[in-house]
Protein backbone atom coordinates (compact mmCIF):
# COMPACT_ATOMS: atom_id res chain seq x y z
CA UNK A 1 0.00 0.00 0.00
CA UNK A 2 0.98 3.64 -0.44
CA UNK A 3 -0.06 6.65 1.48
CA UNK A 4 -1.99 9.02 -0.73
CA UNK A 5 -0.68 12.50 -1.32
CA UNK A 6 -3.36 15.02 -0.60
CA UNK A 7 -1.53 18.06 -1.91
CA UNK A 8 1.16 18.54 -4.49
CA UNK A 9 4.41 20.39 -3.87
CA UNK A 10 5.40 22.03 -0.61
CA UNK A 11 2.92 21.81 2.23
CA UNK A 12 1.02 25.00 2.79
CA UNK A 13 -0.54 25.63 6.16
CA UNK A 14 -2.46 28.85 6.16
CA UNK A 15 -0.13 31.43 4.72
CA UNK A 16 3.07 29.78 5.80
CA UNK A 17 5.07 27.33 3.82
CA UNK A 18 6.22 24.69 6.21
CA UNK A 19 9.54 22.93 5.91
CA UNK A 20 10.09 19.96 8.15
CA UNK A 21 13.79 20.63 8.14
CA UNK A 22 13.11 23.81 10.10
CA UNK A 23 11.07 21.85 12.63
CA UNK A 24 14.00 19.53 13.12
CA UNK A 25 16.62 22.17 13.97
CA UNK A 26 18.01 21.81 17.49
CA UNK A 27 18.59 25.52 17.88
CA UNK A 28 15.91 26.83 15.59
CA UNK A 29 14.41 29.83 17.33
CA UNK A 30 16.23 33.07 18.05
CA UNK A 31 15.89 32.46 21.77
CA UNK A 32 17.47 29.03 21.50
CA UNK A 33 20.38 30.52 19.55
CA UNK A 34 20.90 33.13 22.27
CA UNK A 35 20.82 30.40 24.90
CA UNK A 36 23.45 28.45 22.98
CA UNK A 37 25.64 31.54 22.72
CA UNK A 38 25.33 32.13 26.46
CA UNK A 39 26.38 28.53 27.16
CA UNK A 40 29.40 28.82 24.87
CA UNK A 41 30.48 32.04 26.60
CA UNK A 42 30.08 30.42 30.02
CA UNK A 43 32.13 27.45 28.85
CA UNK A 44 34.96 29.62 27.59
CA UNK A 45 35.05 32.17 30.40
CA UNK A 46 34.10 30.38 33.63
CA UNK A 47 37.70 29.27 34.31
CA UNK A 48 38.90 32.87 33.96
CA UNK A 49 36.55 34.21 36.58
CA UNK A 50 36.22 31.20 38.82
CA UNK A 51 39.82 30.47 39.62
CA UNK A 52 39.23 28.82 43.01
CA UNK A 53 40.52 25.27 42.83
CA UNK A 54 37.76 24.12 45.10
CA UNK A 55 34.88 25.49 43.02
CA UNK A 56 36.49 24.38 39.77
CA UNK A 57 36.82 20.88 41.17
CA UNK A 58 33.12 20.90 42.10
CA UNK A 59 32.31 21.78 38.47
CA UNK A 60 34.78 19.23 37.13
CA UNK A 61 33.19 16.43 39.16
CA UNK A 62 29.76 17.65 38.08
CA UNK A 63 30.80 17.47 34.41
CA UNK A 64 32.10 13.92 34.83
CA UNK A 65 28.85 13.00 36.55
CA UNK A 66 26.87 14.62 33.71
CA UNK A 67 28.47 12.28 31.16
CA UNK A 68 27.77 9.23 33.30
CA UNK A 69 24.23 10.42 33.98
CA UNK A 70 23.53 10.92 30.26
CA UNK A 71 24.45 7.26 29.86
CA UNK A 72 22.28 6.05 32.71
CA UNK A 73 19.35 8.20 31.61
CA UNK A 74 19.54 6.71 28.13
CA UNK A 75 19.16 3.23 29.60
CA UNK A 76 16.83 3.89 32.53
CA UNK A 77 15.02 7.08 31.55
CA UNK A 78 14.64 6.53 27.83
CA UNK A 79 14.56 2.73 27.57
CA UNK A 80 12.96 1.95 30.92
CA UNK A 81 15.64 -0.52 32.05
CA UNK A 82 16.58 0.07 35.68
CA UNK A 83 20.26 -0.63 36.27
CA UNK A 84 22.16 -0.64 39.53
CA UNK A 85 25.34 -1.64 37.70
CA UNK A 86 26.42 1.75 36.42
CA UNK A 87 29.31 2.04 38.91
CA UNK A 88 30.79 -1.17 37.51
CA UNK A 89 31.18 0.41 34.08
CA UNK A 90 32.51 3.64 35.57
CA UNK A 91 35.16 1.54 37.28
CA UNK A 92 35.97 -0.29 34.05
CA UNK A 93 36.54 3.07 32.37
CA UNK A 94 38.80 4.34 35.13
CA UNK A 95 41.06 1.29 35.04
CA UNK A 96 40.92 1.22 31.23
CA UNK A 97 42.16 4.82 31.25
CA UNK A 98 45.22 3.78 33.25
CA UNK A 99 45.84 0.84 30.91
CA UNK A 100 45.34 2.61 27.58
CA UNK A 101 46.86 5.95 28.53
CA UNK A 102 49.48 5.19 31.22
CA UNK A 103 53.04 5.86 29.99
CA UNK A 104 54.23 2.50 31.39
CA UNK A 105 51.30 0.71 29.76
CA UNK A 106 50.06 1.44 26.22
CA UNK A 107 50.68 5.18 26.50
CA UNK A 108 48.11 6.16 23.88
CA UNK A 109 47.32 9.86 23.29
CA UNK A 110 44.30 11.54 24.94
CA UNK A 111 41.63 11.17 22.23
CA UNK A 112 42.66 7.57 21.63
CA UNK A 113 42.52 6.46 25.27
CA UNK A 114 39.21 8.27 25.74
CA UNK A 115 37.84 6.48 22.70
CA UNK A 116 39.32 3.09 23.68
CA UNK A 117 37.95 3.30 27.23
CA UNK A 118 34.50 4.21 25.86
CA UNK A 119 34.61 1.40 23.34
CA UNK A 120 35.78 -1.06 25.98
CA UNK A 121 32.85 -0.16 28.25
CA UNK A 122 30.43 -0.43 25.34
CA UNK A 123 31.78 -3.83 24.31
CA UNK A 124 31.53 -5.25 27.82
CA UNK A 125 28.00 -3.81 28.00
CA UNK A 126 27.11 -5.42 24.67
CA UNK A 127 28.41 -8.79 25.94
CA UNK A 128 26.57 -8.66 29.27
CA UNK A 129 23.42 -6.97 27.90
CA UNK A 130 21.84 -10.01 26.26
CA UNK A 131 21.93 -11.92 29.56
CA UNK A 132 20.81 -9.11 31.83
CA UNK A 133 18.08 -7.81 29.56
CA UNK A 134 16.10 -11.02 29.38
CA UNK A 135 14.85 -9.88 32.75
CA UNK A 136 12.59 -6.98 33.51
CA UNK A 137 12.01 -4.51 36.30
CA UNK A 138 13.17 -5.64 39.72
CA UNK A 139 14.91 -8.76 38.43
CA UNK A 140 17.01 -6.64 36.12
CA UNK A 141 17.88 -4.36 39.04
CA UNK A 142 19.03 -7.35 41.08
CA UNK A 143 21.13 -8.85 38.30
CA UNK A 144 22.82 -5.52 37.61
CA UNK A 145 23.44 -5.24 41.35
CA UNK A 146 25.39 -8.46 40.92
CA UNK A 147 27.67 -6.63 38.48
CA UNK A 148 28.71 -4.30 41.30
CA UNK A 149 29.90 -7.19 43.44
CA UNK A 150 31.55 -8.91 40.50
CA UNK A 151 33.31 -5.65 39.69
CA UNK A 152 34.50 -5.04 43.22
CA UNK A 153 35.85 -8.57 43.33
CA UNK A 154 37.72 -8.13 40.05
CA UNK A 155 39.03 -4.68 40.95
CA UNK A 156 40.37 -6.00 44.26
CA UNK A 157 41.92 -9.15 42.87
CA UNK A 158 43.33 -8.35 39.45
CA UNK A 159 46.26 -6.72 41.22
CA UNK A 160 48.50 -6.40 38.16
CA UNK A 161 45.98 -4.12 36.50
CA UNK A 162 44.12 -2.50 39.37
CA UNK A 163 46.68 -2.43 42.14
CA UNK A 164 44.26 -4.37 44.34
CA UNK A 165 42.80 -2.84 47.48
CA UNK A 166 45.32 -0.06 47.67
CA UNK A 167 44.41 1.22 44.22
CA UNK A 168 46.48 2.44 41.31
CA UNK A 169 47.87 5.66 39.90
CA UNK A 170 46.30 6.93 36.72
CA UNK A 171 48.89 8.98 34.93
CA UNK A 172 47.58 9.04 31.38
CA UNK A 173 48.69 11.99 29.30
CA UNK A 174 45.97 14.60 28.89
CA UNK A 175 47.34 16.45 25.90
CA UNK A 176 45.86 16.89 22.49
CA UNK A 177 47.15 18.94 19.53
CA UNK A 178 49.87 20.37 21.70
CA UNK A 179 47.40 21.40 24.43
CA UNK A 180 48.18 19.69 27.72
CA UNK A 181 44.99 20.05 29.75
CA UNK A 182 46.81 19.08 32.93
CA UNK A 183 49.21 22.00 32.54
CA UNK A 184 47.68 24.30 30.03
CA UNK A 185 49.44 27.30 28.59
CA UNK A 186 47.88 29.18 25.76
CA UNK A 187 48.74 32.54 24.21
CA UNK A 188 51.32 33.18 26.84
CA UNK A 189 48.94 32.46 29.75
CA UNK A 190 49.40 29.58 32.15
CA UNK A 191 46.36 27.79 33.53
CA UNK A 192 45.97 25.47 36.50
CA UNK A 193 45.16 21.77 36.37
CA UNK A 194 41.56 22.46 37.39
CA UNK A 195 41.11 25.15 34.77
CA UNK A 196 42.46 22.90 32.02
CA UNK A 197 40.29 19.98 33.09
CA UNK A 198 37.21 22.20 33.17
CA UNK A 199 37.62 22.86 29.44
CA UNK A 200 38.40 19.23 28.70
CA UNK A 201 35.53 17.78 30.73
CA UNK A 202 32.82 20.27 29.77
CA UNK A 203 33.88 20.12 26.12
CA UNK A 204 33.19 16.39 26.27
CA UNK A 205 29.90 17.03 28.10
CA UNK A 206 28.84 19.22 25.15
CA UNK A 207 29.86 16.58 22.62
CA UNK A 208 28.11 13.73 24.46
CA UNK A 209 24.98 15.84 25.00
CA UNK A 210 24.78 16.54 21.28
CA UNK A 211 25.22 12.85 20.40
CA UNK A 212 22.60 11.71 22.91
CA UNK A 213 20.15 14.45 21.89
CA UNK A 214 20.51 13.40 18.26
CA UNK A 215 20.04 9.77 19.19
CA UNK A 216 16.80 10.31 21.09
CA UNK A 217 15.20 12.42 18.37
CA UNK A 218 15.87 9.99 15.52
CA UNK A 219 14.72 6.48 14.66
CA UNK A 220 16.80 4.48 17.16
CA UNK A 221 15.99 6.80 20.06
CA UNK A 222 12.28 6.78 19.34
CA UNK A 223 12.45 2.99 19.30
CA UNK A 224 14.03 3.01 22.78
CA UNK A 225 11.21 5.16 24.12
CA UNK A 226 8.65 2.91 22.46
CA UNK A 227 10.20 -0.07 24.26
CA UNK A 228 9.94 1.85 27.52
CA UNK A 229 6.33 2.96 27.04
CA UNK A 230 4.87 -0.28 25.70
CA UNK A 231 7.10 -3.13 24.67
CA UNK A 232 4.47 -5.36 23.03
CA UNK A 233 3.20 -2.55 20.81
CA UNK A 234 6.80 -1.64 19.98
CA UNK A 235 7.48 -5.16 18.73
CA UNK A 236 4.28 -5.28 16.73
CA UNK A 237 5.25 -2.12 14.80
CA UNK A 238 8.62 -3.66 13.95
CA UNK A 239 10.99 -2.66 16.77
CA UNK A 240 13.34 -5.54 17.60
CA UNK A 241 13.29 -5.45 21.40
CA UNK A 242 16.54 -7.30 21.98
CA UNK A 243 18.50 -5.19 19.56
CA UNK A 244 17.39 -1.90 21.07
CA UNK A 245 17.69 -2.97 24.70
CA UNK A 246 21.21 -4.25 24.12
CA UNK A 247 22.08 -1.17 22.08
CA UNK A 248 20.94 1.11 24.88
CA UNK A 249 22.88 -0.95 27.42
CA UNK A 250 26.04 -0.80 25.31
CA UNK A 251 25.87 2.95 24.77
CA UNK A 252 25.02 3.54 28.40
CA UNK A 253 27.99 1.41 29.47
CA UNK A 254 30.25 3.18 27.00
CA UNK A 255 29.32 6.59 28.40
CA UNK A 256 29.79 5.29 31.94
CA UNK A 257 33.27 4.14 30.97
CA UNK A 258 34.01 7.52 29.39
CA UNK A 259 32.97 9.21 32.64
CA UNK A 260 35.12 6.71 34.53
CA UNK A 261 38.14 7.40 32.34
CA UNK A 262 37.80 11.14 32.97
CA UNK A 263 37.29 10.44 36.67
CA UNK A 264 40.48 8.40 36.86
CA UNK A 265 42.49 10.85 34.82
CA UNK A 266 41.20 13.81 36.86
CA UNK A 267 41.91 12.19 40.25
CA UNK A 268 45.11 10.57 38.95
CA UNK A 269 44.37 7.75 41.34
CA UNK A 270 41.53 5.25 41.79
CA UNK A 271 40.75 2.43 44.22
CA UNK A 272 38.01 -0.23 44.27
CA UNK A 273 36.08 1.43 47.12
CA UNK A 274 35.01 4.19 44.76
CA UNK A 275 33.01 1.92 42.46
CA UNK A 276 30.56 0.37 44.88
CA UNK A 277 26.81 0.44 45.14
CA UNK A 278 26.89 3.95 46.61
CA UNK A 279 28.17 5.36 43.32
CA UNK A 280 25.40 3.60 41.36
CA UNK A 281 22.84 5.05 43.72
CA UNK A 282 24.33 8.52 43.36
CA UNK A 283 23.81 8.26 39.61
CA UNK A 284 20.24 7.11 40.08
CA UNK A 285 19.71 10.12 42.38
CA UNK A 286 21.18 12.43 39.74
CA UNK A 287 18.76 11.35 37.01
CA UNK A 288 15.77 11.30 39.36
CA UNK A 289 16.50 14.78 40.69
CA UNK A 290 17.36 16.10 37.22
CA UNK A 291 14.57 14.44 35.29
CA UNK A 292 14.18 10.83 34.16
CA UNK A 293 13.89 10.55 30.38
CA UNK A 294 15.25 14.01 29.59
CA UNK A 295 18.69 14.87 28.19
CA UNK A 296 18.69 18.24 29.89
CA UNK A 297 17.75 16.73 33.28
CA UNK A 298 20.89 14.56 33.32
CA UNK A 299 22.98 17.71 33.24
CA UNK A 300 20.98 19.73 35.77
CA UNK A 301 20.96 16.73 38.09
CA UNK A 302 24.72 16.40 37.78
CA UNK A 303 25.24 20.11 38.41
CA UNK A 304 23.11 19.96 41.54
CA UNK A 305 24.38 16.64 42.90
CA UNK A 306 27.67 15.86 41.13
CA UNK A 307 29.64 18.26 43.28
CA UNK A 308 27.71 17.51 46.46
CA UNK A 309 30.17 15.05 48.02
CA UNK A 310 32.93 17.63 47.65
CA UNK A 311 30.77 20.37 49.15
CA UNK A 312 29.74 18.27 52.12
CA UNK A 313 33.33 17.30 52.70
CA UNK A 314 34.43 20.93 52.68
CA UNK A 315 31.67 22.30 54.88
CA UNK A 316 31.31 19.31 57.21
CA UNK A 317 33.10 21.32 59.94
CA UNK A 318 30.30 23.81 60.04
CA UNK A 319 27.48 21.24 59.96
CA UNK A 320 26.64 20.37 63.59
CA UNK A 321 26.82 16.71 64.56
CA UNK A 322 29.09 15.64 61.72
CA UNK A 323 32.31 13.93 62.67
CA UNK A 324 35.12 14.97 60.37
CA UNK A 325 38.06 12.94 61.45
CA UNK A 326 39.57 10.50 63.88
CA UNK A 327 38.71 10.98 67.50
CA UNK A 328 36.09 13.55 66.65
CA UNK A 329 32.87 12.34 68.20
CA UNK A 330 29.90 13.13 65.99
CA UNK A 331 26.46 11.91 65.32
CA UNK A 332 27.12 10.97 61.69
CA UNK A 333 30.22 10.58 59.51
CA UNK A 334 30.76 12.59 56.32
CA UNK A 335 30.39 9.42 54.29
CA UNK A 336 27.08 8.46 55.88
CA UNK A 337 25.79 12.00 55.60
CA UNK A 338 26.47 11.81 51.88
CA UNK A 339 24.52 8.60 51.53
CA UNK A 340 21.68 9.92 53.65
CA UNK A 341 21.33 13.05 51.52
CA UNK A 342 21.28 11.12 48.26
CA UNK A 343 18.73 8.69 49.68
CA UNK A 344 16.56 11.49 50.99
CA UNK A 345 16.63 13.33 47.65
CA UNK A 346 15.57 10.18 45.78
CA UNK A 347 12.62 9.73 48.11
CA UNK A 348 11.58 13.38 48.11
CA UNK A 349 11.71 13.72 44.35
CA UNK A 350 9.93 10.44 43.68
CA UNK A 351 7.14 11.54 46.00
CA UNK A 352 6.84 15.23 45.16
CA UNK A 353 8.28 15.77 41.67
CA UNK A 354 8.90 12.46 39.89
CA UNK A 355 9.68 14.33 36.68
CA UNK A 356 12.57 16.11 38.33
CA UNK A 357 14.06 19.58 38.06
CA UNK A 358 13.69 19.50 34.27
CA UNK A 359 9.91 19.62 34.78
CA UNK A 360 10.25 22.39 37.34
CA UNK A 361 12.32 24.34 34.83
CA UNK A 362 9.70 23.91 32.11
CA UNK A 363 7.02 25.20 34.49
CA UNK A 364 9.11 28.23 35.39
CA UNK A 365 9.72 28.91 31.70
CA UNK A 366 6.02 28.62 30.90
CA UNK A 367 5.28 31.02 33.75
CA UNK A 368 7.68 33.64 32.46
CA UNK A 369 6.47 33.27 28.89
CA UNK A 370 3.15 34.65 30.01
CA UNK A 371 4.77 37.17 32.36
CA UNK A 372 3.66 39.82 33.27
CA UNK A 373 0.20 38.55 32.42
CA UNK A 374 0.28 35.55 34.72
CA UNK A 375 -2.21 35.08 37.44
Amino acid at each position, binding site marked *: *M*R*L*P*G*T*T*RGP*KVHGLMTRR*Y*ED*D*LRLFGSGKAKLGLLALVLLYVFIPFFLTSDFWLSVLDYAGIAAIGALGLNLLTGFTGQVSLGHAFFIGLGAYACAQFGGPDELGLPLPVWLFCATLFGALVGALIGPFALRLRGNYLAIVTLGLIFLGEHLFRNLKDITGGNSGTNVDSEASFLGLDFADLSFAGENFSFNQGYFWLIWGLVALVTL*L*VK*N*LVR*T*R*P*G*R*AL*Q*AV*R*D*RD*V*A*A*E*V*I*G*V*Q*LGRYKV*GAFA*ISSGLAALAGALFGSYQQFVSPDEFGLVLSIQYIAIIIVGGV*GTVFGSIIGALVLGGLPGLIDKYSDSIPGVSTGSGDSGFISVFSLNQAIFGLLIVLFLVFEPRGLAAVWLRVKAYFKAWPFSY
Partner: protein
Amino acid sequence: MTGTVEPMEAAHHERPGPSEPSLLEVQDLGLRFGGVKALDGVTFDVRRGELFAVIGPNGAGKTSIFNCLNGVYRPQRGSITLEGADLLRKGPAEIAGLGVSRTFQNLGLFENLSVVDNLMLGRHHLMRTGFLAGMAWWGRAKGEEVHHRESVERVIELLELEPFRTQPAGKLPYGVQKRLELGRAIAMEPKLLLLDEPVAGMNLEESEDMARYILDVRDRLNLAMILVEHQMALVMDLADRVMAMDFGVPITVGTPEQVQSDQRVVDAYLGAAS
Protein backbone atom coordinates in the same frame (compact mmCIF):
# COMPACT_ATOMS: atom_id res chain seq x y z
CA MET B 1 6.78 0.34 0.06
CA THR B 2 8.69 3.58 0.12
CA GLY B 3 7.03 6.77 1.21
CA THR B 4 7.04 8.59 -2.09
CA VAL B 5 5.37 11.94 -2.19
CA GLU B 6 3.37 11.50 -5.40
CA PRO B 7 -0.34 11.83 -4.97
CA MET B 8 -2.39 8.74 -5.59
CA GLU B 9 -5.84 8.69 -7.09
CA ALA B 10 -8.45 7.65 -4.59
CA ALA B 11 -9.09 4.07 -5.63
CA HIS B 12 -12.73 3.26 -6.07
CA HIS B 13 -13.47 0.41 -3.75
CA GLU B 14 -14.88 -2.72 -5.31
CA ARG B 15 -15.74 -5.89 -3.52
CA PRO B 16 -13.03 -8.38 -4.41
CA GLY B 17 -14.19 -11.35 -6.42
CA PRO B 18 -13.72 -14.88 -5.09
CA SER B 19 -11.41 -15.76 -7.99
CA GLU B 20 -8.58 -13.51 -6.73
CA PRO B 21 -5.81 -15.25 -4.81
CA SER B 22 -5.95 -14.75 -1.05
CA LEU B 23 -3.58 -12.40 0.72
CA LEU B 24 -3.83 -14.21 4.03
CA GLU B 25 -4.61 -17.86 4.65
CA VAL B 26 -5.29 -19.23 8.10
CA GLN B 27 -5.63 -22.99 8.43
CA ASP B 28 -6.93 -24.97 11.39
CA LEU B 29 -5.49 -22.69 14.06
CA GLY B 30 -5.39 -24.11 17.60
CA LEU B 31 -4.28 -22.15 20.67
CA ARG B 32 -4.47 -23.30 24.31
CA PHE B 33 -3.64 -21.62 27.60
CA GLY B 34 -3.33 -24.47 30.05
CA GLY B 35 -6.79 -26.00 30.05
CA VAL B 36 -8.44 -23.09 28.21
CA LYS B 37 -8.94 -23.55 24.48
CA ALA B 38 -8.72 -19.97 23.19
CA LEU B 39 -8.85 -21.06 19.53
CA ASP B 40 -9.83 -24.36 17.98
CA GLY B 41 -9.95 -25.18 14.26
CA VAL B 42 -10.01 -21.59 13.04
CA THR B 43 -9.80 -21.47 9.23
CA PHE B 44 -10.38 -18.44 7.01
CA ASP B 45 -8.79 -16.40 4.27
CA VAL B 46 -8.65 -12.69 3.49
CA ARG B 47 -8.48 -11.41 -0.07
CA ARG B 48 -6.66 -8.35 -1.35
CA GLY B 49 -8.57 -5.17 -0.65
CA GLU B 50 -11.18 -7.03 1.36
CA LEU B 51 -12.69 -5.81 4.63
CA PHE B 52 -13.09 -9.02 6.59
CA ALA B 53 -14.86 -8.86 9.95
CA VAL B 54 -14.65 -11.20 12.93
CA ILE B 55 -17.49 -11.03 15.41
CA GLY B 56 -18.34 -12.93 18.54
CA PRO B 57 -19.12 -12.38 22.20
CA ASN B 58 -16.43 -11.43 24.70
CA GLY B 59 -13.92 -14.22 25.20
CA ALA B 60 -14.72 -15.79 21.82
CA GLY B 61 -11.05 -15.62 20.81
CA LYS B 62 -11.08 -12.63 18.45
CA THR B 63 -8.09 -10.86 19.99
CA SER B 64 -6.25 -14.17 20.20
CA ILE B 65 -6.48 -14.50 16.40
CA PHE B 66 -4.75 -11.12 16.05
CA ASN B 67 -2.09 -12.10 18.56
CA CYS B 68 -1.35 -15.20 16.48
CA LEU B 69 -1.23 -13.22 13.23
CA ASN B 70 1.21 -10.76 14.84
CA GLY B 71 3.47 -13.42 16.28
CA VAL B 72 2.69 -12.31 19.86
CA TYR B 73 1.16 -15.72 20.63
CA ARG B 74 2.47 -19.04 19.30
CA PRO B 75 -0.46 -21.30 18.37
CA GLN B 76 0.10 -24.99 19.07
CA ARG B 77 -1.57 -26.06 15.82
CA GLY B 78 -2.31 -24.80 12.33
CA SER B 79 -0.70 -22.51 9.78
CA ILE B 80 -0.78 -18.84 8.83
CA THR B 81 0.57 -17.63 5.49
CA LEU B 82 0.74 -14.12 4.09
CA GLU B 83 1.40 -14.10 0.34
CA GLY B 84 2.83 -17.58 0.75
CA ALA B 85 5.20 -16.62 3.60
CA ASP B 86 4.82 -18.71 6.75
CA LEU B 87 4.13 -16.26 9.58
CA LEU B 88 4.39 -18.86 12.34
CA ARG B 89 8.15 -19.02 11.85
CA LYS B 90 8.55 -15.30 12.34
CA GLY B 91 8.65 -12.90 15.27
CA PRO B 92 6.41 -9.84 15.68
CA ALA B 93 8.98 -7.35 14.38
CA GLU B 94 9.60 -9.41 11.25
CA ILE B 95 5.88 -9.82 10.62
CA ALA B 96 5.51 -6.03 10.82
CA GLY B 97 8.14 -5.79 8.09
CA LEU B 98 6.10 -8.13 5.88
CA GLY B 99 3.21 -5.68 5.96
CA VAL B 100 0.92 -6.56 8.87
CA SER B 101 -0.11 -3.73 11.16
CA ARG B 102 -2.55 -3.54 14.00
CA THR B 103 -4.43 -1.53 16.59
CA PHE B 104 -5.06 -2.76 20.12
CA GLN B 105 -8.37 -3.24 21.87
CA ASN B 106 -7.08 -1.46 24.99
CA LEU B 107 -4.81 1.02 23.18
CA GLY B 108 -1.11 0.42 22.58
CA LEU B 109 0.14 3.97 22.16
CA PHE B 110 3.49 5.26 23.37
CA GLU B 111 1.98 7.56 25.95
CA ASN B 112 4.90 9.84 26.69
CA LEU B 113 5.68 10.47 23.04
CA SER B 114 4.04 13.12 20.87
CA VAL B 115 1.50 12.36 18.16
CA VAL B 116 4.18 12.95 15.51
CA ASP B 117 6.64 10.61 17.26
CA ASN B 118 3.98 7.90 17.58
CA LEU B 119 3.30 8.17 13.86
CA MET B 120 7.03 8.28 13.05
CA LEU B 121 7.34 5.02 14.97
CA GLY B 122 4.87 3.58 12.50
CA ARG B 123 7.53 4.33 9.88
CA HIS B 124 10.23 2.55 11.92
CA HIS B 125 10.34 -0.56 9.75
CA LEU B 126 10.58 1.55 6.59
CA MET B 127 13.58 3.49 7.92
CA ARG B 128 17.20 2.43 8.27
CA THR B 129 19.01 4.87 10.60
CA GLY B 130 20.93 2.93 13.26
CA PHE B 131 22.45 4.03 16.56
CA LEU B 132 25.61 5.57 15.15
CA ALA B 133 23.95 7.33 12.22
CA GLY B 134 21.30 8.69 14.57
CA MET B 135 23.91 10.11 16.92
CA ALA B 136 25.74 11.73 14.02
CA TRP B 137 22.51 13.25 12.62
CA TRP B 138 24.03 14.80 9.49
CA GLY B 139 23.78 12.41 6.59
CA ARG B 140 21.32 9.56 6.55
CA ALA B 141 19.43 10.37 9.75
CA LYS B 142 18.46 13.90 8.79
CA GLY B 143 17.38 12.99 5.27
CA GLU B 144 15.27 10.11 6.54
CA GLU B 145 13.64 12.22 9.24
CA VAL B 146 12.53 14.86 6.74
CA HIS B 147 11.35 12.32 4.20
CA HIS B 148 9.27 10.26 6.61
CA ARG B 149 7.97 13.31 8.40
CA GLU B 150 6.29 14.16 5.10
CA SER B 151 4.58 10.79 4.95
CA VAL B 152 3.46 11.22 8.54
CA GLU B 153 1.99 14.59 7.65
CA ARG B 154 -0.26 12.90 5.10
CA VAL B 155 -1.57 10.55 7.78
CA ILE B 156 -2.21 13.57 9.99
CA GLU B 157 -4.25 15.15 7.20
CA LEU B 158 -6.15 11.98 6.39
CA LEU B 159 -7.21 11.47 10.02
CA GLU B 160 -7.49 15.17 10.88
CA LEU B 161 -4.96 15.04 13.67
CA GLU B 162 -3.57 18.54 12.94
CA PRO B 163 -4.51 20.10 16.31
CA PHE B 164 -2.57 17.47 18.25
CA ARG B 165 0.84 17.16 16.51
CA THR B 166 3.09 17.92 19.48
CA GLN B 167 0.85 16.68 22.30
CA PRO B 168 1.82 13.57 24.24
CA ALA B 169 -0.36 10.66 23.16
CA GLY B 170 -1.31 9.73 26.72
CA LYS B 171 -2.91 13.12 27.33
CA LEU B 172 -5.30 13.01 24.34
CA PRO B 173 -9.04 12.35 24.62
CA TYR B 174 -9.90 8.67 24.28
CA GLY B 175 -11.47 9.00 20.83
CA VAL B 176 -8.40 10.80 19.48
CA GLN B 177 -6.13 8.13 20.95
CA LYS B 178 -8.07 5.47 19.06
CA ARG B 179 -7.73 7.54 15.90
CA LEU B 180 -4.01 8.05 16.47
CA GLU B 181 -3.57 4.31 16.82
CA LEU B 182 -5.30 3.84 13.47
CA GLY B 183 -2.91 6.50 12.14
CA ARG B 184 0.16 4.73 13.45
CA ALA B 185 -1.05 1.48 11.86
CA ILE B 186 -1.56 3.05 8.42
CA ALA B 187 1.70 5.01 8.68
CA MET B 188 3.29 1.54 8.49
CA GLU B 189 1.95 1.23 4.92
CA PRO B 190 0.68 -2.29 5.57
CA LYS B 191 -0.82 -4.83 3.20
CA LEU B 192 -3.04 -6.11 5.96
CA LEU B 193 -4.47 -3.93 8.71
CA LEU B 194 -5.89 -5.51 11.86
CA LEU B 195 -8.36 -3.40 13.83
CA ASP B 196 -9.29 -4.70 17.27
CA GLU B 197 -12.60 -3.14 18.38
CA PRO B 198 -11.86 0.35 16.98
CA VAL B 199 -15.07 1.83 18.40
CA ALA B 200 -15.09 0.09 21.78
CA GLY B 201 -15.92 2.52 24.56
CA MET B 202 -16.96 5.33 22.20
CA ASN B 203 -20.21 7.23 22.13
CA LEU B 204 -22.40 7.18 19.03
CA GLU B 205 -20.91 10.31 17.49
CA GLU B 206 -17.33 9.16 18.01
CA SER B 207 -18.22 5.72 16.61
CA GLU B 208 -19.67 7.27 13.47
CA ASP B 209 -16.55 9.41 13.04
CA MET B 210 -14.37 6.37 13.40
CA ALA B 211 -16.45 4.41 10.89
CA ARG B 212 -15.97 7.28 8.45
CA TYR B 213 -12.19 7.27 8.98
CA ILE B 214 -12.08 3.51 8.45
CA LEU B 215 -14.03 3.87 5.20
CA ASP B 216 -11.73 6.72 4.15
CA VAL B 217 -8.69 4.58 4.80
CA ARG B 218 -10.17 1.70 2.88
CA ASP B 219 -11.07 3.84 -0.10
CA ARG B 220 -7.83 5.81 -0.23
CA LEU B 221 -5.33 3.08 0.51
CA ASN B 222 -5.68 -0.16 -1.26
CA LEU B 223 -5.30 -2.55 1.64
CA ALA B 224 -7.02 -5.52 3.23
CA MET B 225 -8.46 -5.20 6.72
CA ILE B 226 -9.62 -7.50 9.42
CA LEU B 227 -12.05 -5.77 11.72
CA VAL B 228 -12.81 -7.32 15.09
CA GLU B 229 -15.98 -6.19 16.81
CA HIS B 230 -18.30 -7.60 19.34
CA GLN B 231 -21.10 -5.22 18.38
CA MET B 232 -22.70 -6.26 15.11
CA ALA B 233 -24.00 -2.92 13.80
CA LEU B 234 -20.68 -1.43 12.59
CA VAL B 235 -19.63 -4.70 11.02
CA MET B 236 -22.84 -5.10 9.06
CA ASP B 237 -22.35 -1.68 7.47
CA LEU B 238 -18.69 -2.01 6.58
CA ALA B 239 -17.65 -5.59 6.00
CA ASP B 240 -17.40 -7.54 2.77
CA ARG B 241 -17.46 -10.85 4.61
CA VAL B 242 -17.97 -11.77 8.25
CA MET B 243 -16.79 -14.68 10.36
CA ALA B 244 -18.73 -15.33 13.56
CA MET B 245 -16.96 -17.04 16.48
CA ASP B 246 -17.98 -18.54 19.78
CA PHE B 247 -15.74 -20.18 22.40
CA GLY B 248 -12.74 -20.13 20.06
CA VAL B 249 -14.56 -21.94 17.26
CA PRO B 250 -15.78 -20.32 14.01
CA ILE B 251 -19.53 -20.79 13.62
CA THR B 252 -19.95 -19.47 10.12
CA VAL B 253 -18.39 -17.30 7.39
CA GLY B 254 -20.44 -15.33 4.86
CA THR B 255 -21.81 -12.00 3.75
CA PRO B 256 -23.12 -9.75 6.54
CA GLU B 257 -26.72 -10.62 5.55
CA GLN B 258 -26.06 -14.35 5.68
CA VAL B 259 -24.31 -14.18 9.03
CA GLN B 260 -26.88 -11.89 10.57
CA SER B 261 -29.70 -14.26 9.79
CA ASP B 262 -27.82 -17.39 10.86
CA GLN B 263 -29.64 -18.96 13.81
CA ARG B 264 -26.37 -20.23 15.40
CA VAL B 265 -24.97 -16.68 15.48
CA VAL B 266 -28.12 -15.34 17.07
CA ASP B 267 -27.98 -18.12 19.67
CA ALA B 268 -24.31 -17.40 20.48
CA TYR B 269 -25.11 -13.76 21.15
CA LEU B 270 -28.23 -14.56 23.15
CA GLY B 271 -26.28 -17.18 25.09
CA ALA B 272 -23.57 -14.67 25.92
CA ALA B 273 -26.13 -12.06 26.93
CA SER B 274 -28.05 -14.31 29.31
